[in-house]
């Protein structure tokens, strides 16, 4: 497999370098498709694609290109959909859990097709992913919290067997990203474990989401699994509505001072108006009498 990949790269490189030497402005170049497969913790399968081409000895990303993704085995071909690359030349397709895909003995084969246009040749790339699973078990013993992860696959007989010697990342889910808490390698039984840090903030119930992943593996792609547990420190964050300069409500002394000043002045204004009215009444009476 590795040899195949290296061979592919060498082939692509030689093709491109050869191309560059003879390339003219109007001659199309063959772009490169890089595709990776990941199984996310909710069961979604994601195919991420990057499309680039070599231009003037520089690798440039190709935006706004349509790509078709096909899942296939020896018997059937299913078109999964089309995606368009973004400004960074990247696109991804999510396959929701429960979608039936054509599969072979141990996994799936995906094919990414680029149709080509006047400047770019058409090309394709296929990836194969052997289906692997991650199992998480969480144990707490004498305040020591341990996460144990086991990476397994099904053998020919359909039995679960551990995958040994693969790296496993342990993370805690945060607002924008995963926060890594440690990396381990699986043992001969395919499992590894890590102590959960004691000071990891959780939500107000102490809940944290632990995400364990086997990162990008040639055979299995990325496999991710997550579990919620109340191992985090409790969040105490209350913003009390207070009276202050920067708040909606003013400090009470300010309200009182303003009220006192305003009533003080406006009472005098009222008093003056009353005086004028009295002067008027006195005058009217005088005229009558």
């Amino acid at each position: 497999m590795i040899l195949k990949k290296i061979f592919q790269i060498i082939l692509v490189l030689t093709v491109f370098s050869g191309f560059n030497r003879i390339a003219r402005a109007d001659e199309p170049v063959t772009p490169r498709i890089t595709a990776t497969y990941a199984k996310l913790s909710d069961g979604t399968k994601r195919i991420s694609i990057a499309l680039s081409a070599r231009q003037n000895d520089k690798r440039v990303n190709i935006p706004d290109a349509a790509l078709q993704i096909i899942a296939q085995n020896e018997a059937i071909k299913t078109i999964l959909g089309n995606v368009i690359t973004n400004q960074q030349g990247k696109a991804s397709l999510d396959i929701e859990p429960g979608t039936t895909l054509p599969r072979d003995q141990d996994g799936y084969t995906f094919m990414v097709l680029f149709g080509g246009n006047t400047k770019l040749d058409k090309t394709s790339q296929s990836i194969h992913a052997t289906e692997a699973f991650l199992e998480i078990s969480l144990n707490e013993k004498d305040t020591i919290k341990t996460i144990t992860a086991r990476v397994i696959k099904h053998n020919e007989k359909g039995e679960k067997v551990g995958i040994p010697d693969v790296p496993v990342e342990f993370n805690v889910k945060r607002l924008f990203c995963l926060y890594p808490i440690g990396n381990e390698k699986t043992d001969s039984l395919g499992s590894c474990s890590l102590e959960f840090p004691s000071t990891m903030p959780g939500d107000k119930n102490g809940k944290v989401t632990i995400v364990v992943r086997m990162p990008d593996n040639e055979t299995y792609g990325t496999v991710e699994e997550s579990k919620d547990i109340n191992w985090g420190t409790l969040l105490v964050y209350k913003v009390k509505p207070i009276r202050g300069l920067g708040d909606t409500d003013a400090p009470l002394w300010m309200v009182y001072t303003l009220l006192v000043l305003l009533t003080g002045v406006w009472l005098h204004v009222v008093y003056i108006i009353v005086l004028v009215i009295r002067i008027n009444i006195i005058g009217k009476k005088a005229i009558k009498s």
Partner: protein
Amino acid sequence: MSQQEIAQQKLVEIFAHFGKPSKFSKGLFIFLILIVLFAFYALILQMTRGQIVTGMRDYVIWGIYEVNFIFFIGISYAGAMISGILHLLHVEWRKPIIRIAEMITVISVLIGPLYVLLSMGRMDRFLHIFEYGRIQSPIVWDVIAITTYLTCSILFLYLALIRDYALLRDNQELKISSFRKKIYRKLAVTYHELPLQKKLLNRGLSVMSAIIIPLAVLVHSVLAWIFGMTIRPGWHSTIFAPYFVIAAVFSGTAVLIIAMWIFRKYYHLEEYITEKHFKYIGLILLVLAGLYGYFTFSEYLTVWYGSETWELEVIYKLFDFSDYGAWFYLAAFAGVLIPMLFTGIPFFRNINTITIGAVIAVVCMWIKRYLIIVPTLETPLLPNQDYRPEYVHYHASWVEWSLTAGGVALFFLFFMIFIRFMPIIPVADISEVPENKEFISEKL
């Protein structure tokens, strides 16, 4: 002759000058209207195209609109402080000039706040202040204080006018249209110099003059706090409120002197407004100039001595001749020392020199307020690394200048309209026999 008859006679005498507008005043009126119309055009332009037509930009966010605002509110001190204090102290010679002073107050408090509206990006949302007002904000203090102040100064002016309206109502000699008579009758509220009426009126005047003094102090303090409450060099100073108050009384008094001179000259009130009035008010101006100079010295000495980097940056902009130096020395020295010279030294002291001193004081006070606002805004805490010159240095645009001119024109226009409807000299007051043998005017 009874006191009433004397008063009626004086009324006719004084109104003789105002009865028919002269050619000059007609011309002046039209000229002022034209200026106001041009300012209105500038206003329309600013409202339709936004404040991009002004010289204000992201760093210097306030310009001469704010300068004019402080300036006009400062001028309003003429009526509030001079007239209020002199009333409370029963100074008899105040009587011929209090009407002018109180008119200055009302007119300038009407015009000043217009500049706050002009410096607002969204004048159309002005009512949001009442809808969403937060009393933590000095701007809300300002709105509350100025509306109260305007109400009180209008009442103060009106109370002192009741007796004159009564005279106008009862006057037979002057040709007053029946419509105007009707208005005078309403405004005079059946006042007939009855002893009880007079007592109540005097009580009202005393209360009003007592309340208007602290109110005026508060208004200008609040104005100073708009600047004082921000963390900015040249603004964030504890003496800012009293400094502004003194500056305001100083400029208000100076404007009163100028107004006295103009009325004396063009309406021939020499017999009422005499050289003595100028000398007395001149002495008040002298004291205020001294106080103002003292505050200025104290403010800049403290900041310079403390030599905080940020503060020094502003101070050096003011001291440096290549920057604002010339203006600063003019405003801080000439604006204080020349009025002091003309009012303080008997040799130089006469009606014209005192008035020249007052003009210099008023102009310099305007410049000083410019120097308080603009150099500070041109000195942000983080350096201004904008390479567009208009974002670094403020230059008022023609729109701002024409609206400034419009405000000044409006000030004179209001005066010209006001004096047609109310006697510029409180006739009833000066016709009274003074309680003591103190000087009122040469005539009495």
